[in-house]
């Protein structure tokens, strides 16, 4: 039985890299005694894959890991057991049975991701999201954030919303993208599905997955470069990026139909 786990990652856990989060999950599975299936062979390992690695420094409300069970376990029970043994900063949100099809793993179908980007020195927004809730309630660990929130009244730079609208209205956004071997000019506009101001933050929906993938920092770099050229002054500020959700594309070749990875599973009762 295949299962998709959705989880949040926040607080100091933002400094734990993808591979170490995987290691943490493996140990969590053992501590929670989840009947996870193993590969065969002389060095068996847990059947577990993550939809899309999250960079160091980012927090998230929408991370996904797919696992295979060797025996069924109720969703509610599994969530309870996993949360009881998770480190502070990992919270299991859902645990759902998914299709057995190989091509339906999170890793294979992830197509888009939502992000919120805010000014690290002005984090007064973000009502319901984990990252911001923590900032607002003072649990957020980083000294720069909650204290500095009071010192800077508005985020980014003056009239940033107007510039963002102009930036998003462009037909082409060329950036220098570094690959392993060389640098190349890439048009990132087609990989930006949505881009807009949302209260004091910037919301963006970007291409994600193995075919095309765009990181929010790259968009912000381009935006700062754009605004700097227009305003003729330095505008970049330290950022805090938060992933909100991951999507699969259930549409066809002509029309995109993004659905959350979570919605493709069903609770085990």
């Amino acid at each position, binding site marked *: 039985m295949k299962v998709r786990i959705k989880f949040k990652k926040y607080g100091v856990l933002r*400094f734990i890299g993808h591979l170490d989060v995987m290691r943490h999950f493996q140990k969590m*599975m053992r501590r929670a005694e989840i009947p996870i299936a193993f590969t065969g062979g002389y060095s068996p390992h847990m059947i577990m894959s993550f939809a899309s690695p999250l960079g*160091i*420094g980012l927090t998230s409300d929408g991370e996904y890991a797919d696992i295979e069970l060797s025996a069924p376990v109720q969703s509610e029970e599994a969530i309870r057991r996993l949360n009881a043994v998770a*480190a502070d*900063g990992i919270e299991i949100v859902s645990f759902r049975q998914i299709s057995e099809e190989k091509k339906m793993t999170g890793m294979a179908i992830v197509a888009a991701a939502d992000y919120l980007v805010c000014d690290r020195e002005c984090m007064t927004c973000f009502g319901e999201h984990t990252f911001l809730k923590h900032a607002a309630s*003072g*649990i957020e660990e980083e000294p720069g954030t909650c204290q500095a929130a009071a010192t800077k009244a508005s985020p980014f730079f003056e009239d940033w919303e107007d510039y963002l609208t102009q930036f998003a209205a462009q037909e082409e956004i060329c950036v220098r993208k570094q690959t392993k071997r060389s640098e190349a000019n890439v048009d990132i506009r087609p990989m930006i599905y949505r881009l807009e101001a949302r209260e004091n933050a910037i919301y963006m929906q970007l291409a994600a997955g193995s075919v095309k993938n765009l990181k929010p920092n790259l968009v912000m770099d381009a935006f700062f470069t754009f605004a700097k050229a227009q305003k003729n002054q330095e505008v970049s500020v330290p950022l805090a990026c938060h992933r909100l959700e991951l999507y699969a594309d259930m549409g066809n070749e002509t029309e995109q139909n993004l659905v959350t990875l979570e919605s493709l599973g069903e609770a085990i009762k």
Partner: protein
Amino acid sequence: MRKLALNDEILLKIEKPARYIGNEVGSVMKNLNEVEVRFAMCFPDVYEIGMSHLGIQILYDMFNQREDTWCERVYSPWRDLDQIMRERHIPLFALESQDPIKNFDFLGITLQYEMCYTNVLQILDLSGIALHAAERTKDDPIVIGGGPCAYNPEPLAEFFDLFYIGEGETSYDELLTCYKEYRDAGKSRREFLERAAQVPGIYVPQLYEPSYHEDGTLAAFTPVSPHAPRTVKKQVAMDITHATYPLKPVVPFIKATQDRVVLEIQRGCIRGCRFCQAGMIYRPTRERDVEVLKEYARAMLENTGHEEISLNSLSSSDYSCLEELVNFLIEEFQDKKINIQLPSLRIDAFSLDVMSKVQDIKKSSLTFAPEAGSQRMRDVINKGLTEEDILEGAGQAFEGGWTKVKLYFMLGLPTETEEDMKEIARLCDRVARRYYEIPKEQRNGKCQITASSSFFVPKPFTPFQWATMCTSEEYVRRAALVKHEFMEQLNRKSLKYNWHEADETILEGVFARGDRRTGKVIEEAYRLGCLFDSWTESFDYQKWLAAFENTGVDADFYTLRERSTDELLPWDFIDIGVTRKFLEREWERAVRAEVTQNCRQQCAGCGAAGFGGGVCFEGKN
């Protein structure tokens, strides 16, 4: 509210930020308003190394069982962060609370190897604590050292307020309790140190003064306070079955060197190898009850979620219930896909059988530690391992399907001749020959014999504590000679030989048996920029040479000089329970290549029976 000591900008810039954020499963958080004593426990090396150390996990758990005490951890910031902390004046902090170390009551530093000594100074320096104990005020934590290097604390004497000699399970309660009492009564730092000197196992260097003969050797080592005892007695936890053990150890996010459950099955070793300090200072050998170990294994695997368990001891094969324990682990945990690691096993039929069950024969290699190539040399060091044992064990292993064998040796042992050195290569060749005796169709291609040698460093409280060392050039010559002999062997294509650096050996030699005067070399080396000396990429021998030059300390005096058994040694004020007479006797026997039997075969009267338990009284109750 838990704030990190470092901001995002710094944490995103440095290597492995997870080293500095705490929050691991198993780490202990307490309410500051409810604790009276704050203890910072330090392993002066990088996080992944420090987190792998069992002793710290034991003490961390033990301290935190006390309601009035909060013990936190601190490790050496790696060079990248070290530089940032200096530039921006960020004080060193503990992982749990992220509070500056300077605010703590105690800073405990474990001393596991000599090459961490400059890191000790880094810890003090970054914490904003005066390097010299004598210059500290009531605002500074009490700095206490422990671990194997504390058995010769003199090179570090100036930098520590206290040293704890022996096993931590016994005297810390008394020390913490009297600390609270003295602090609450408003007593001075000096008054507390004098009181601490009366706690069993506690050495207060400021209360002793060495004097020297004209030739530089130690003339006297005298207490200068009526509160300081003449000798400091090693502390031993005699009942290790009921001693505290961390059943919920901290589980790091990043991969530590020791990323597994560690079960300490026994403490001490019955073998009595004459080069081995652990074999002497942990006497008498004490076993942990097998039923307790089974319970611990289950609880620790459940609590940590580790996928591997390792048995820890100096010589696992000597644990009397090993077979029972290993069979239990295999039966209980193998279908849960738990790996079982069995280091320090003697290679024989039993261990090969067990290993074939728990590991992939094709991938794994077998390890032998003959330590010396010739039988004569092995008799000198009292390594109770004959060539027959080695060839027999290797033969069985080869027939069982193994093709890779590792062998560990030491060069520069007392009385070593060129013949002894060459025997290292020849022994390896004979192991390879044993492999090729197997008919071609039954064996699995070529075998791979890897030999490594390190240079021997004489350690305090061993029969070799009087031995001389060689010059750096001589060590290199010996390694080259062995290398050359390897090239001469019939099976040279199946043999590989590696050797360790010689320069580091010289420094280890100086500080292992150094006196109080060598402390200024460490300080000078630190000021010149030496740090992480046990890391090849950081080790800078030229700076060390400059440090000796600048301080006028002669390294040769400590390494090359022949010590007579009449000489007063800097660590003689410590009583480890094994008598000096016994060590002298063993030194004499070593020179005559006479073997001394192990503790179970025949008591050699080392003195450890005075502790009233362990192997010394086995079968006598």
